[in-house]
C-alpha cells in the first residue's frame, strides 16, 4: 500500500449546560458543588455590573479605553475554579471573572485602565500577571512560569488565556511548541469570540476550529462551549490534571462571543451584523446559568435582587477606591526602572529636565 494514513485525529466539542437549558447529568455530575454555585452566581453578577459601569466611566471621561468582558465570563472563571492558589493565571484583558476569583483586587484592573501603573502591582500571593496589551505575547511567559514550577517541583501549573486573533502571532506558536516539546505544565485557553476588533475569526485561520492549532505541536486539543460554565470547568479540570500529572500542555478552544464593542474606542456596528449579535445575546452565559439554577432551586429572585444590590455597593466602593487613591507622584515612573537608579536618571528625575544646562545650572555662570 503506497499511501497510508500517517495521522488522524478527532476534536471533541464539550457542552454540558446548553443554550436551551438542557443539562448533561453524566458529564455534569460533581463538577461544581451545589453549595458553591450561589457564590459563583453572586460573583458573576458583580463582575457583569463592574463591566457595564466601567463602560460608563469611560464615556463620562473617568476612565481611559476599556475592553468589556460581557459575554465572556465563563472561560476564565472555570479556570479559576479548577486551579489552586499557587497556580498561575496568565491572561489577556477579558478574564476579569477568573482573575478576581483567583484573588486579584478589582481595583487593580480599574487602575490599569485609568492609566495608573500601580494597578499592575499585583499583591504578593496572587499568582497572576498583569493585563497583556501586546497581543499574543503572554503565552510564552506562561510556558516559562510553568517551566519554573516544574524545575522547582512544586506541582503548580500555569493557565494562559488569549483570543482567536492572538493565535496568528508567531509568539503563540513558539509558546505552544515550547510547552509541548518540553512537556511543561501549561494550559492554553483560546477565547474564540468570533472577532479580533473588526476582523472575523475566519481571517485568523482557514481551519475548521482553533482547537486544532494545538495538534501540530502534539498536544491534546478540545473545544468547549465557552458560554457554559460546566463545560468549561470540565475541560479545564481535565487539562489542569494532565498538567499537574506531568503530562504536558492541553489546548482548549472556548467558543464564545464578544457581546460588546471591542473596546470603548470601537463601534462594532461598523462591521458586525445585528442578527449575529442577537443570536449570541440569546446565548448569554449568565441568564443561562441563572435559569438553570432557579429551576434546580439553587437560586431565586430574591437572592438575585440581593446579589444585584450588594454587587452595586461593591462596585461603587471599588470605583471610589480606584478614583480616590492619591495621585501618583509626578516622577513615580522613574521609581521602578531598575533596582538601582543610575545617576543620570536620578538627575533627570530630580531636575525634571534632559537638557545639560537645566541639570547643571552652574554651567550657566
Amino acid at each position, binding site marked *: 500500500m503506497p499511501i497510508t494514513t500517517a495521522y488522524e485525529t478527532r476534536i471533541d466539542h464539550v457542552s454540558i449546560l446548553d443554550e436551551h437549558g438542557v443539562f448533561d447529568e453524566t458529564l455534569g455530575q460533581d463538577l461544581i458543588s451545589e453549595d458553591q454555585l450561589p457564590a459563583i452566581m453572586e460573583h458573576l453578577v458583580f463582575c457583569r455590573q463592574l463591566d457595564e459601569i466601567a463602560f460608563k466611566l469611560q464615556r463620562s471621561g473617568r476612565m481611559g479605553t476599556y475592553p468589556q468582558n460581557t459575554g465572556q465570563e465563563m472561560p476564565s472563571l472555570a479556570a479559576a475554579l479548577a486551579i489552586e492558589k499557587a497556580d498561575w493565571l496568565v491572561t489577556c484583558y477579558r478574564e476579569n471573572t477568573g482573575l478576581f476569583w483567583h484573588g486579584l483586587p478589582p481595583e487593580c484592573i480599574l487602575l490599569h485602565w485609568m492609566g495608573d501603573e500601580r494597578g499592575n502591582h499585583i499583591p504578593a500571593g496572587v499568582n497572576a500577571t498583569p493585563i497583556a496589551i*501586546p497581543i499574543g505575547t503572554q503565552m510564552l511567559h506562561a510556558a516559562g512560569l510553568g517551566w519554573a514550577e516544574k524545575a522547582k517541583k512544586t506541582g503548580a501549573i500555569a493557565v494562559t488565556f488569549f483570543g482567536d486573533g492572538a493565535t496568528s502571532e508567531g509568539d503563540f506558536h513558539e509558546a505552544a511548541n515550547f510547552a509541548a516539546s518540553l512537556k511543561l505544565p501549561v494550559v492554553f485557553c483560546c477565547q474564540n469570540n468570533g472577532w479580533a476588533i473588526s476582523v472575523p475569526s475566519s481571517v485568523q485561520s482557514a481551519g475548521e476550529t482553533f482547537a486544532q492549532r494545538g495538534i501540530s505541536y502534539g498536544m491534546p486539543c478540545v473545544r468547549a462551549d465557552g458560554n457554559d460554565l460546566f463545560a468549561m470547568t470540565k475541560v479545564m479540570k481535565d487539562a489542569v490534571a494532565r498538567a499537574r500529572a506531568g503530562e504536558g500542555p492541553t489546548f482548549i478552544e472556548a467558543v464564545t462571543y464578544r457581546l460588546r464593542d471591542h473596546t470603548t474606542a470601537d463601534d462594532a456596528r461598523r462591521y458586525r451584523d445585528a442578527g449575529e449579535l442577537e443570536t449570541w445575546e440569546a446565548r448569554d452565559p449568565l441568564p443561562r446559568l441563572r435559569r438553570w439554577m432557579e429551576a434546580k432551586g439553587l437560586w431565586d429572585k430574591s437572592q438575585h435582587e440581593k446579589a444585584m444590590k450588594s454587587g452595586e455597593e461593591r462596585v461603587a466602593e471599588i470605583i471610589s477606591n480606584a478614583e480616590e487613591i492619591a495621585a501618583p507622584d509626578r516622577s513615580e515612573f522613574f521609581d521602578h526602572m531598575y533596582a538601582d537608579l543610575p545617576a543620570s536618571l536620578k538627575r533627570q528625575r530630580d531636575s525634571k529636565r534632559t537638557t545639560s544646562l537645566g541639570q547643571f545650572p552652574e554651567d550657566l555662570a
Partner: protein
Amino acid sequence: MTTAANETEMTLVQAVTDALACEMRLDDRVIILGEDVGLNGGVFRATEGLQAEFGADRVVDSPLAESGIIGSSIGLAMNGMRPVPELQFEGFMGPAYDQLCSHAARFRTRTRGRFTVPMTVRVPHGGGIHAPELHSDAPEAIYAHQPGLKVVMPATPYDAKGLLIASIRDPDPVIFFEPKRIYRAFREAVPNEAYTLPIGKARVVTEGTDLTVVAWGAMVVEAAKAAEQSKASIELIDLRTISPLDEDTILASVEKTGRCVVCQEAPLTLGLASEISSLVTERCFLHLEAPVQRVAGFDTIMPYYKLEMEYLPGPDRINAAIDETLRY
C-alpha cells in the same frame, strides 16, 4: 479661509487617506494590508472608504501578525507590487522588527540590487492621546539607526499627503510615522491632485535669527507654541524626514543663529536629538555660542497616561531650554 477649487481643507489623517486613494487610483500595484484596515477603515480611520472604492483584494484585512504583515509585504514588494502595510500602533512594531531590520533593510544590498523592497510601512506614532500601554511610544531612532530603511514623519496635512505619495513611489523601504496626537489637531488646504514632496528635505516653519529649534512629528506643534511664547527670534525647523537627515538645512540655520535646541518625544539617550547635536557640534563648532540642548522624553519606559504629560516635553520645558541656551 478660502480654499481654491482644486484643494480641500483636511486633517492630517484625512490627508493620509487622500494620499492613499490618489496613489491607488494612479497605480494598480499599490495595495494596503493590515489589521482592521478594511471595512473598519483602520482604528484611526486612516483607510476609511478605501476598501469600498478599491475592493477587498487591494485593501486587505490580514491576520493579526505584524511579522506576517511586514514579511509578506517584503515579498509583495520584491515581486512587482507596491504594498503599503499598516501597523496599528508603534508599540506593536516589536514582532515586525526582525522583518524590517533583518530583511527589508537588507534585500537591496545583499542581492546587489537584484531585489528591492519598495514598501511603505505606515505606523501611528507617539503619545499624548490618553491611550493604554504600548500605544504611545516614539521608536523612530531605532529604525533610523538601521541602515537601509528610510524614516519619514510629517507634521502637517499638506506634508503628510506629499510625503506619503513620495514614500510609496520611493524605490526603497520607508517607515512612515504618523503623529497620532495631531491626526485631527488642525486642518489645512491640501491639493486634490497627487503630488510629492522630496524625502530628505526639512521645512523651515518660521525663520528667526537668535536660536534654531529642531523638531519633528507632534513635537513641531509643541515647539511652535514655545517659539510663539518666546521673546527671542526662533527659527523652527520641522525635519519631515528623519532618515536621511537634511543636514544642510540644519547646519545653515545654526550657522546663522549660533544656538540650537532639539526637541523629541523619545527617550534622551541615543535618540535622534543626540545625532543632531553631534552633527551640529562637529560641523558648526565655530559658529556655536552655546552647547546644543536636547529636550527629550526621559530615559524611562513611557508611563501610562496619568503621567504621560509629565514625560512628554511641552512648551515649558522647551522654553526653559531656549532661555538657558540664550543666556549661556
